[in-house]
């Protein structure tokens, strides 16, 4: 009933959307892998990043892709302060405490945005939003092609930070053995906050990539958060290659299931995968521990 070109196009579009999903999930899985916390505020922080990109474009006329350069350090700082001064001290390290503190935080952020910007959806009008890149018989949307490229570059950059810098070494040390790391003089609270900051900074890039083709409202991030959790669980909690592959996979699943089931029911495919993975193999495809 569908021609192979349409299905293949949906597949490619799914892959490219999946790349941005992967970027969101990358931040989440990094935070989980090091801090062992489920960060419920991740979606709300994505919304913050998208609003910052929107503001940069609306008030200062910056292109959303250029705005990434400005918004990334801002999100980095926000992430650092949230973990260092709110989540860390409030939760006192208990698993349940962190879950609830980040849930509380996400509600505060989401509703501050609602109070500040009301519930209107905002978009950025660019002249390239609907531009098409022809690739053989396929027609691909330009923002998504850019999204795929930037996501891959960011993932490589993240890998380099973790494996080639001192802070990366410290992060890996704390993830492996918190007590040992603190005994050799690593400031664990600082490393935690740095990890959280890097994970949050990924959202700034994702926000910039999403804004040309997407809208933002105070609840936008909430729609992404379960998708991001699905990717993280599917790829294995804490696994960076897992988040990348999981992201691409989920993008494809969403594209294909919306093609066959329609947009509103299409999302159900993602949740069913999420539930199945949790029930059958909670360690995910690449995860080492449950």
């Amino acid at each position: 009933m569908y021609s192979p070109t349409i299905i293949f196009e949906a597949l490619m579009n799914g892959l490219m959307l999946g790349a941005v999903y992967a970027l969101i999930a990358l931040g989440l899985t990094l935070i989980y892998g090091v801090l062992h916390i489920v960060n419920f505020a991740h979606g709300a922080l994505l919304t913050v990043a998208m609003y910052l990109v929107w503001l940069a474009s609306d008030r200062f006329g910056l292109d959303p892709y250029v705005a990434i350069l400005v918004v990334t350090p801002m999100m980095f700082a926000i992430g650092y302060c949230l973990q260092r001064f709110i989540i860390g001290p409030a939760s006192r390290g208990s698993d349940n405490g962190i879950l609830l503190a980040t849930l509380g935080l996400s509600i505060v952020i989401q509703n501050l945005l609602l109070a500040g910007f009301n519930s209107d959806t905002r978009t950025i009008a660019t002249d390239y939003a609907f531009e098409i890149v022809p690739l053989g018989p396929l027609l691909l949307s330009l923002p998504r092609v850019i999204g795929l490229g930037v996501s891959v570059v960011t993932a490589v950059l993240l890998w380099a930070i973790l494996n080639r810098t001192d802070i990366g070494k410290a992060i890996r040390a704390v993830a492996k053995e918190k007590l040992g790391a603190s005994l050799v003089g690593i400031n664990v609270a600082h490393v935690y906050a740095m990890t959280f900051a890097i994970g949050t900074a990924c959202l700034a890039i994702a926000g910039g990539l999403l804004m040309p083709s997407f809208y933002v409202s105070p609840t936008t991030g909430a729609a992404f958060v379960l998708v991001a959790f699905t990717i993280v669980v599917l790829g294995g909690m804490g696994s960076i290659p897992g988040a990348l592959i999981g992201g691409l996979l989920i993008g494809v699943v969403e594209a294909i299931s919306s093609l066959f089931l329609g947009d509103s029911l299409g999302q159900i495919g993602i949740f069913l995968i999420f539930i199945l993975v949790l029930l059958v193999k909670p360690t995910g495809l690449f995860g080492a521990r449950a």
Partner: protein
Amino acid sequence: MKKNFEFIAALAFLGVVGIAAIAGLPGNILNLLIFMMIIALTAQGWNVLGGYGGLSSFGHAAFFGTGAYTTTILQTSFGINAWVGLVCGVILGAAVGALIGFLSFRAGLKGSYFALITLAFAEVLRILANSWDFTGGAAGMMVSINNGFAYLQFSDRRWFLLILIGFVAGGLLLTRWLERSAFGAYLIALRENDQAAQALGVDIFKIKIQAITLSAAITALAGCLYVQNFLFIDANVAYGSWISIEALFAAIVGGAGTMLGPLIGSVLLLGLGEITKSFSGGIAGVDLVVFGIILILCVAFAPNGIRGFVADLWYRRKSRGKAM
């Protein structure tokens, strides 16, 4: 001794609210009290599993919504009596709880994983209810207006409040039974250390399933009563995350794993929400910002909620008195 005092104080509070309602309260206060009681009941359900069992669910909307939709569909599409619909709603809600519990606990999920999977189940139900004709789709469903006790609808809202007070008092009684029963002791034991409890011969899988079934039944009851009061339901109200969050908030802020916690939490939070709304001049979201801040403060400074915080102060004062 102390627990008895608390129980009697709570019943006295409910009694005073009931008498005040009969004597005559302004309509908006009456509506607020009705909503407080519905949320208190929802949170009492959450508290059985999340408070006593230590299994924090982020998806109690799955049970609330199932109760609400069952009552509505049985009444509107099949012309079945409201009270029978309510009983069916509770049974079906409990069944959904047992099923989710069976799947999740068999896979050994707890902590964040359990929170996430309950959230996902509620979302699946929300999407289904939003697209099926059977549940009215995105337009939602209305219960036709028929006043009278048999229809569980009252033109005079005071009667509805009294019925709700009765159910919340029933919830208190149930929690009191839970605290004294072997079942409750097993449940608390698995919260504190599930491996130790299992080693001592507690069938933790069975206890967890029983707990989630009971928990779901109470929350489903709240869902049924919600729809009998507002006479309208749609997927975002029934299965939306707001109700899961209200349930968890009220129980945790009031004091998770305590008899009074859910009632204290819902009265305080919704009361405070009304006050902030009246001060913020109609800006949406300000009341929820306050809720979120209170939740973080509770996690940081009062891990046992307001009930625990007050109890700590009380004992500290008492022990200081003894030392002197």
